[in-house]
């Protein structure tokens, strides 16, 4: 399946996320999920970003709301707008899961 997963929290739902598999997997970081794109806890990337084969996106509005900019974002993560998210879920992926 082609699955777009939304992560909106800094903590929790990790165990479902880790086990989920998809032929094509997009991980869209929104709301407090954006912290995974900018924080290096203990000097390390968020474990969220180690999901194999996934493409990572973060919503610019939610990044800016919380005081971060493109300069802070992990190079693994692409910044997207609301319009981009619409395109992702209608064109690139077939199903969505808001964890």
């Amino acid at each position, binding site marked *: 399946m082609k699955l777009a997963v*939304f992560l*909106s929290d800094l903590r929790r739902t990790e165990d479902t996320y880790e086990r989920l598999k998809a032929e094509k997997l997009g991980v869209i970081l929104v*709301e407090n999920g954006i912290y995974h794109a900018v924080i290096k806890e203990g000097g390390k990337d968020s474990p969220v970003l180690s999901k194999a084969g996934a493409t990572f996106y973060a919503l610019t509005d*939610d990044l800016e709301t919380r005081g971060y900019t493109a300069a802070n974002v992990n190079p693994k993560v692409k910044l997207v707008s*609301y319009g981009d998210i619409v395109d992702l*879920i*209608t064109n690139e992926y077939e199903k*969505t899961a*808001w964890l």
Partner: protein
Amino acid sequence: MAELTLGVFPSLVGSMSLDFSFKLAEAAIAKGHKVNMWLSGNAVMMAKKGQKAFKDYSHLEKRMKELMSKGMEITVCEACAEARGYHKEDVPEGMKRASMDWYLAKTVKTDRLLHIGGE
């Protein structure tokens, strides 16, 4: 163009998930998609007219009305609303109240479903 259904369950004033939903709906409509929105759980807060617009809180009634005028269907869970003391006369114009089967039925024909659960 696709049909997108959003089911929004978390949130009240203070969480940003409702804001997210309305901004995403706006972006989808701008691209010519059809959008349906189901509000259940705490998200039924939208079924109460007369919310005072403070800068400290997001205030979505105006945006909701604009989106409805552009064809978005928006329906709230009737039981969830009554349990919070929101009655028929409280509903903003254009919004519908129904039971959960409205949402279930929408899942049949919609191309995409984004169900926003959470706590």
